[in-house]
């Protein structure tokens, strides 16, 4: 059933409109942050209202304005969009809390601008999640790239300049250079850009054209970080940690994979992917990304860079699962968006907490830190469990569905990729945990008495870690949302 409602627009507007009070009350920190929280909770409230409709099997639509003769700025809320929206907006609350702790304790400059851009980025994420056609999605995708630029370059130093330059070059370059022409070509071939469960390409279009289009889309959404368009992600690590967590867990990369999965499932269609070699192309590209990035991650010493490469690998999983193109694996892929989000944000929060408390960035310096900061490191451990895909953390479930999916269509070589990369995940996470807990610490590394980070920086990782565990036990909301879209019961 289709319900016409303006709720999706309100959900977007809430965070957009928050910009104005944030600017007005820019001088008064507390009032400013109160507005952020009001907006975040309002947004979540609206989303849960929407989720009720969606979980009942409805699709909420609303149309903003007709911009081209057959395309309008349209919104459609289905399970998949809802999933991303809930993940992003619930993590916004946590991240805001964490930002306050992080930014204030480090006395960062230009905090008003920071919170403004954060709110704007959230609006753009909602827009992507709720878009009903490719054009709308592209619009908000670009808006997201632009609004996160000031966040990435927040430090305004030479590194930030380089990182920011890389960030924009990759994201805008690919979206203008690849997605835009691909989108226009798609429109001219099919006459529509609206997402459709069956895909929009008929049988009349040559497979060669489709292959080119597919590749343009895959690489065009560079936010998904597929090889070789991944290097903006480690480059963007110059940003403050809350931003990194936003980039990696909440908004940016999730939007990237979301876009790709959307296009694979609803522009190309699962049938087209599974019946032709297109799915295989996706699997090969994503599989390579998974393996290479995991191997690179092992050699990293900078914790945040390691997490960045880990993210690239996990994004690869999501695309890979969509490329396998069975209903179960697509469910897994969607589920993994949320599971990975909670897991990865925990890891980033922990990295940030360590930095706030000790000023350490490198793994080699973290020997024995588990004893000094037990809560943080336990959270870290849970997060890494989720990423690896071991039980008691949400990541297990999504991987379970993904692997089941491969068996479903008999692409067993894909399963091999999953297995190898899971081993690699273990190989880069467990040494950290081992060093943190089981190695005796070197006194020279920690001359002062080190304690846990401030509460505002400590609480968020604990919260997200517990959510990660909770999602293993009660995955219903996300699982149902994913199942509703794919149609698995």
């Amino acid at each position, binding site marked *: 059933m289709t319900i016409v409602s303006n709720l999706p627009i309100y959900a977007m507007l809430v965070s957009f409109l928050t910009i104005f009070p944030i600017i007005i009350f820019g001088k008064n920190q507390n009032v400013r942050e109160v507005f952020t929280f009001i907006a975040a909770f309002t947004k979540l409230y609206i989303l849960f209202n929407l989720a009720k409709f969606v979980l009942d099997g409805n699709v909420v639509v609303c149309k903003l*304005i007709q911009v081209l003769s057959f395309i309008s700025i349209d919104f459609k809320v289905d399970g998949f969009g809802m999933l991303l929206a809930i993940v992003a907006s619930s993590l916004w609350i946590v991240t805001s809390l964490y930002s306050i702790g992080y930014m204030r304790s480090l006395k960062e400059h230009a905090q008003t601008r920071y919170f403004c851009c954060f709110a704007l980025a959230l609006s753009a994420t909602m827009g992507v999640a709720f878009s009903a056609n490719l054009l709308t999605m592209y619009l908000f995708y*670009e808006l997201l790239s632009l609004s996160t630029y000031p966040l990435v370059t927040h430090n305004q130093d030479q590194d930030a300049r380089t990182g920011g330059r890389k960030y924009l070059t990759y994201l805008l370059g690919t979206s203008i250079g690849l997605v835009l022409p691909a989108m226009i070509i798609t429109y001219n071939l099919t006459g529509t850009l609206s997402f459709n469960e069956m895909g929009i390409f008929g049988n009349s279009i040559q497979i060669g054209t489709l292959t080119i289009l597919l590749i343009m889309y895959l690489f065009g959404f560079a936010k998904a970080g597929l090889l070789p368009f991944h290097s903006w992600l480690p480059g963007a690590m110059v940003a403050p940690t809350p931003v990194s967590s936003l980039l990696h867990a909440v908004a940016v990369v999730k939007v990237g994979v979301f876009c790709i999965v959307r296009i694979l499932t609803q522009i190309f269609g699962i049938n087209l992917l599974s019946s032709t070699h297109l799915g295989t192309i996706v699997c090969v590209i994503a599989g390579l990304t998974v393996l290479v990035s995991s191997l690179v991650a092992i050699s990293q010493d900078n914790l945040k860079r390691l997490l960045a490469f880990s993210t690239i690998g996990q994004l690869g999983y999501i695309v890979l699962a969509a490329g396998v193109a069975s209903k179960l694996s697509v469910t897994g892929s969607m589920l993994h968006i949320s599971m990975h989000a909670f897991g990865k944000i925990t890891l980033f929060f922990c990295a940030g907490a360590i930095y706030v408390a000790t000023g350490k960035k490198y793994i080699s310096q973290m020997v024995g830190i588990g004893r000094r900061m037990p809560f943080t490191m336990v959270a870290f451990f849970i997060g890494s469990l989720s990423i690896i895909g071991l039980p008691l953390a949400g990541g297990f479930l999504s991987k379970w569905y993904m692997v089941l999916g491969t068996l479903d269509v008999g692409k067993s070589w894909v399963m091999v990729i999953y297995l190898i990369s899971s081993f690699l995940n273990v190989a880069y996470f467990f040494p950290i945990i081992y060093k943190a807990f089981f190695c005796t610490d070197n006194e020279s590394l920690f001359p002062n008495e080190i304690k846990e980070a401030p509460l505002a920086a400590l609480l968020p990782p604990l919260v997200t870690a517990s959510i990660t565990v909770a999602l293993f036990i009660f995955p219903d909301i996300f699982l149902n949302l994913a199942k509703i879209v794919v149609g698995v019961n």
Partner: protein
Amino acid sequence: MADQFLVLIVLFPLFVGLLIPIIAYFNKSVVWPLAILSLIGSFWAVFNTATQLLKLDPSSSISYYLGNWMAPFGIEYVVDRFNIMVLFAIICVSLLTTIFAKQVIEKELGDNAANFYSLFLLFITGLLGITITGDAFNLYVLLEIASLTSYGLIALGRGRALVATFNYLIMGSMGACFYLLGVGYLFIKTGTLNMDQLYDVLPLLFDSKAVLVGFVFIILGMWVKMAFFPLHSWLPNAYSLAPTAAACLMAPLMTKVSVYVMIRFMLNVFSTEYVYSVLTINNIIVIMSSIAIIAGSIYALSQKNLKKMLTFIIVAEIGYMVGGVWTGHVDGIRGAIYHITADAFMTLCLFMAVGCIVYRVGNDKLESLKGIFKKMPITMICFLVGGFSVIGIPPTCGFFSKWYLISGAFNSGAWYFIIALIISSLINAVLFFRIIEIGFFGAMSNEKPDYKSLQSIKFNEVPINMWLPLVIVSMILIILGIYTNEIMTNFILNIVPMM
């Protein structure tokens, strides 16, 4: 009175333009309000014409016979859905520029301000006349009015403006002469100068060589006037050295109006059948415009001066429009027509913003933009909106014109044009983000962030009558983008015959 609106569009600025030199001897302070009043009058006339036109059948037009002599014998003014759009663009751009320009003119020109306003209004008169006229020779006379005034306006600029103007004069006269010659070649075969009548007569003469030469020279003349690469050499210096107010007016309008004339001749004098079927030069011209786009963009990339960079962007944008029209597909032509209006506002936005920056900072070198975001946030945000539109980021109008242009190129198989468009978008992205970077980061090569120097920059925005038009233009860019569909269905769809 009701049916006189067509001529009133031109008369308001004409009369006030003529009166200003006299009035200025008595009272100089009324000149600016008077100029604005005349443009508002003209706007009112355009608006009324538009409301009349929109009541009619989409493909119909309103004619006005000057001196009450019927069409081929007297001069005819015609308004249809094509040029009403261009008229709107011209009058909005000139109104906003005039409001914007008060301080700039006083600062840059001093004693000459009154004469400058007179030339300014006569230039607008010329452009409005070119757009609205239905007579090929009348168009030439108005073209010369517009050209002569623009020589005067540009020559008032700084530095090497004189030499630039002389070059422009030689090239511009050459273009006008080519146009006149082309009209002569048509005239000798048809004996008429009225565009409608030419449209009726010409199909019988499609195999005539004289008509071919006439067509080529008209197009060539317009190419010179619009600075189509490689005939662009006059433009960058002329527009970058002109006084700010003149650049704000001319850069958006002069080239666009020339493009309009070209499209007018292609669609409404020669027919699409002649242009795309009888002649088979589409591909060559699309290739030429692809080269123009890429060359313009690369030149723009190599500039260290903000205004000069923008002028080369104009050169590239001209390539968009010419290429779009010559793709020969409905979408391409529509895109080009839409882009006339869109690009007029885009260019206006950018030039106005640069005008504001020059007004405050004093020069337009790229490195003097350090920390400008904090100093002039409103200006810079508007500048960015203009920049996004040039790059083609939705929902600004630049995205939608690009959409149609690429569609047209795709459907006519001109893949090189698509590549050129994409490359130019990418280069534009680099251009504008370079400015963002400079404006955002303050110091150029500082290893450590110098937050103190960033914080010491004071908010120093331009006066309200300068930033308000700028904000309005940037809103127009977005509004135009959002209402693309309305514009397409109400105006452009009916202009371009289906092929």
